[in-house]
């Protein structure tokens, strides 16, 4: 690996971490679209900042653009508060308006300004190593690496300091407010961090990938864990690994780096969506199938419980009276036998004491909805897991 290659991957990894952290909270607050809005509407801020500083990595530019991001949020909320339109409509109104101002500003000054819309949308990570930071004439590395590292340090610092406040205000804004942790302050704090991150990252990865880096890792992690800290860790891992794999994919295919990274993020999400142990599509389908079988089992056990006469307990009766297909009958019988709930002697099915107990408890649960007594059954049967 050459030095620029290492630098590019380092920038990509740092951008991925810096995006993943606010992304987790945006996803949990159901505000994913806001990051899309911010990433586009910061354009006029960036253009004006660029006119003033002629440097895409200048702190003034980042500040100006971040303020535009926060203004976006304020405008969206103001429009929403009129009660005339819903939030998604408000977002759809605000960010194209601001973005188009940026586009016009670029077009009007196209000759003087080294900035074009393509670069804004897609970024150009490959060029990042060319813009060096010189301190007292010494080359200390790419500018965007330093800028993003600084942004990331601030983000991590704020996350550690205000983790508990962010958690409570995200989960329960009412309680947060009553406890004295103003949800408004935290909301705008998060919006400011998101805006700064988007501005810092957009030069490297563009306005579109920034959104993907914020939302996709968090959405993927959400499918895998029920612990906020783990969700943050997993998001960072998914973000960084997708960024690096995406870089090498681009290298291999000779394609756009940001495009490849976004593709990898999408593929990773898809794989997790399919195979996640609890929330994944396959797990859910399996669970639903099991639940259907278990409902059948319970129906069958109840039937046995209600009837002592042998004619009602004959194996063939399952097909004739309960009207089940052969396969379903067999699945249900197997499941009952496997759990020692029934015995079959001469094709006559009898409930065992264990089967009887199971039936009584399950029935009681279904009637009363009290689940203290069936706690031990939850591990073996999906039916009782709420």
């Amino acid at each position, binding site marked *: 690996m050459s030095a620029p290659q290492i630098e590019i991957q380092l920038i990509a990894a740092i951008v991925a971490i810096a995006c993943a952290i606010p992304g987790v909270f945006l996803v949990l607050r159901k505000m994913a679209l806001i990051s899309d809005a911010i990433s586009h509407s910061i354009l006029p801020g960036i253009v004006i900042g660029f006119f003033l500083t002629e440097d895409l990595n200048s702190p003034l530019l980042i500040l100006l653009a971040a303020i535009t991001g926060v203004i976006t949020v304020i405008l969206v909320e103001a429009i929403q508060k009129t009660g005339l339109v819903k939030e998604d409509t408000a977002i759809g109104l605000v960010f194209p308006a601001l973005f188009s101002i940026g586009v016009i500003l670029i077009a009007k000054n196209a000759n003087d300004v080294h900035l074009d819309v393509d670069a804004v949308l897609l970024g150009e990570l490959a060029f990042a190593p060319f813009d060096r930071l010189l301190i007292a004439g010494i080359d200390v590395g790419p500018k965007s690496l330093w800028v993003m590292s600084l942004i990331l340090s601030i983000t991590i610092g704020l996350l550690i300091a205000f983790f508990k406040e962010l958690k409570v205000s995200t989960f*329960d804004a009412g309680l947060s407010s*009553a406890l*004295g942790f103003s949800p408004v302050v935290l909301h705008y704090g998060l919006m400011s961090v998101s805006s700064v991150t988007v501005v810092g990252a957009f030069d490297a990865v563009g306005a579109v990938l920034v959104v993907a880096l914020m939302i996709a890792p968090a959405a993927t992690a959400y499918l895998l864990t029920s*612990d*906020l800290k783990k969700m943050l860790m997993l998001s960072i891992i998914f973000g960084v690994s997708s960024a690096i794999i995406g870089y090498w994919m681009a290298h291999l295919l000779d394609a756009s780096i940001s495009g490849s990274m976004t593709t990898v993020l999408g593929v990773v999400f898809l794989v997790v969506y399919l195979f996640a142990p609890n929330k994944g599509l396959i797990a859910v389908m399996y669970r639903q199938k099991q639940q259907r079988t278990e409902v059948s089992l319970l129906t069958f056990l109840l039937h046995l419980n209600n009837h002592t006469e042998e004619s009602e307990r004959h194996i063939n009766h399952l097909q004739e009276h309960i009207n089940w297909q052969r396969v379903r009958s067999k699945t249900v019988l197997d499941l009952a036998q496997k759990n020692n709930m029934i015995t079959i002697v001469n094709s006559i099915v009898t409930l065992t004491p264990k089967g009887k107990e199971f039936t009584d408890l399950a029935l009681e649960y279904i009637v009363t909805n*009290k689940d203290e007594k069936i*706690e031990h059954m939850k591990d073996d049967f999906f039916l009782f897991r*709420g």
Partner: protein
Amino acid sequence: MEEKIAIRVDDLTVAYNYKPVLWDIDLTIPEGVLMAIVGPNGAGKSTLIKSILGIIDPIAGSVSIYDKPYVKQRKLVAYVPQKGSVDWDFPTTALDVVMMGTYGKLGWIKRPGQKEKKAALEALEKVGMLPFKNRQISQLSGGQQQRVFLARALVQNAAIYFMDEPFQGVDATTEIAIINILKELRKAGKTVVVVHHDLQTVPEYFDWVTFLNVKKIATGPVKDIFNDDNLTKTYGINYKVAVNQ
């Protein structure tokens, strides 16, 4: 002995988009009562609690908790929002939710430690949820979720408890468990204010009641003011339908 006033509301008016939802409310709630706020849908019951707690800014009027503004008395007050107001798919456990009750006393930045964890475990024990402490909150039944919310309020160890419809969507056992805990709180001299829907259980559960329908209709001891007259004033002529629900 003179009765201490726990909560005083003066001329409180709250509006959403310039439409008043609470109009000129005067209310004094003495210390140590278990009070129901009743009224039809849209009467402003939740809004009243939220504006006492400073979650909603009123357009007029003032609120005091033991003669001081709420912001100075936060630590004396615990709050249980409506269960439906939060996202139960949030990645966290029952214990962690209860721990949130300790955040108020900790203040900004400081993190909860062993002391807070111990208090949270005790509160879970009190509501019978200790076996579920590590369960993800979406895996709890509606009644269990409400118990977790109650535990979170208990861990705040407050003098005044506000609860927004704690019996909504819970099973009968949980309802009894919750009301018993509320009665214990009252016995310990705490003041408990509950937004309540089921008029039939008011005389059984509460000793104090406020009738609300945008304006305050009446407030006082259940035995004195819980009558057809006030019910009719609050719910209109159809109040009997509400009772039969």
